[in-house]
């Protein structure tokens, strides 16, 4: 009818153009992966054999032991990293809020520091530390998780910090203490249940980061999913691309599902 309507229509048109163009840019290479993994190079035409291979666990284990090993390592790493991260951060952050508010800035600074230290630099500096880790704990790939905790620190810190901000830890724990609860019980029965969403999102983010980690594992010659995929790329291009696409889709599904979990709790 008048200016406002046309302006709104113009804005909507701009929105769809921008979103459409970027989506095309984002989706073309992903489509490229799909197209590449369904090519039948021997007979021509299309084939789903790489995808059927991928879901056939015994066959993958037998023919691509490195891939199976990498996958298993990444799963173990994800679990290990999340557990260590939570054990390290949740009590510390809660404790700082309750008893040592003066240390808030220091802890925040340390947790955000890894954003400014490139992973590749961390690898260089971690070499002697890992010499000790190997000496004390052995060669296991899972010990990479100790370094991964540092990598996920900034993201986990932000999620947990947002969660702690939303609840009044101090009043809650004072109430529990006045009713005779021990510090351990306060942590376990009062703080953790109220932080459920934050703990969940910190864990999901950590899992996604760990599953996508390549730098540290590759340079320390440990085999996780990304390294196995990278190595496989040198011998079996199509299957490795299929693994890559599958991992991207998996990560997308996790994040997409997470966007619903977080919102529901808030309202």
């Amino acid at each position, binding site marked *: 009818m008048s200016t406002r309507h046309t302006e709104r229509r113009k804005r909507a048109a701009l929105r769809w153009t921008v*979103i459409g163009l970027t989506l095309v840019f984002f989706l073309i290479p992903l489509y490229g992966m799909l197209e590449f993994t369904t090519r039948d190079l021997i007979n021509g035409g299309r084939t789903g054999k790489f995808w059927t291979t991928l879901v056939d666990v015994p066959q993958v284990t037998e023919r691509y032991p490195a891939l199976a090993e990498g996958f298993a390592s990444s799963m173990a790493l994800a679990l290990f990293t999340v557990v260590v991260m939570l054990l390290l951060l949740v009590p510390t952050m809660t404790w700082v809020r309750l008893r040592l508010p003066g240390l808030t800035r220091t802890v925040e600074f340390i947790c955000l520091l890894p954003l400014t230290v490139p992973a590749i630099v961390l690898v260089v500096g971690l070499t002697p530390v890992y010499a000790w880790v190997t000496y004390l704990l052995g060669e296991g790939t899972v010990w990479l998780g100790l370094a991964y905790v540092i990598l996920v620190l900034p993201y986990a810190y932000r999620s947990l910090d947002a969660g702690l901000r939303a609840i009044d830890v101090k009043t809650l724990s004072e109430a529990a203490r006045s009713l005779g609860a021990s510090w351990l019980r306060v942590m376990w029965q009062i703080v953790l249940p109220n932080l459920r969403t934050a703990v969940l999102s910190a864990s999901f983010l950590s899992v996604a980061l760990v599953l*996508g980690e390549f730098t540290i594992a590759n340079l320390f010659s440990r085999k996780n999913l990304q390294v196995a995929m990278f190595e496989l790329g040198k011998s079996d291009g199509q299957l490795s691309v299929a693994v890559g696409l599958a991992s991207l889709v998996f990560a997308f599904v996790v994040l997409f599902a997470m966007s619903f979990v977080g919102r529901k709790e808030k309202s």
Partner: protein
Amino acid sequence: MRPSGALVGVAPFFVYTTVFLLIPTIVVVVGAFADGSGRPTLDNVAALGGANSSFLPALQHSVVLSLVTALAGAVIGAVLAYAVSTARPDGLLKRFITSLCGVLAQFGGVALAFAFMATFSIQGFLTVWLNSLGLDTGSSIWLYQWDKGLMLVYLYFQIPLMLIVFLPAVEGIKPQWREATETLGGTTWTYWTKVAGPILLPSFIGATLLLFTNAFSAYATAAALISQASPIVPLQIAGTFTSEVILGQENVGKAMALAMVVVVALVMWVYAALDKRASRWLVR
């Protein structure tokens, strides 16, 4: 409990971060100025600037690559963030795009390089398709060059990262500001130049600098895409892990790592300075 007793509660955190964050940093800084047997030396740093060293060109490539993809990614990502912010807040479109961007920005790595090879390499579907249309795309060498293919791939995670970092700032813009501007006699142009623009500028610059350090630090995508040479710093550092160590230059990798830290620290310093200026009116 006395305060000193309370400190025991945070001890594990500080011990852990000391071992896995502080010590590695010290190792890099000290190692950059030490020779193979631990004696202080400037040889490592000098080696970086040597006449036949490939480090300085790599550093230049890294800076240019990061700068270009940060600026382009920031501008495109900001426009995308604005477009997404005008969509319905809880709509599927918004969730879809933010999730997709989350994956591409933080998870990509090796898989992104694969995606681009599957699309743009000589047998990639886009190349094949364009050829079938009679368009000659030439060789696909460009895909493996730092200033062409690598730049394009980097945009593929820079734009999504910008969206994720910048979207909250765009969504913090209150509709009342536009309406107040209008009632006071301002046009759309005045709104963007005098109100929304200045309000968003600090976040925009901050996000751009973050994108710079992100590209500057990235290793996985480049490692998977470029196998022949080491045109950027992270690849050079990785090279010191695998190549044979020249006597007396055991710690050149640490010197390179230190150079990276210095660049990133410089960027962060600029960021902090800008942030301080803006924080006069920013609410935290």
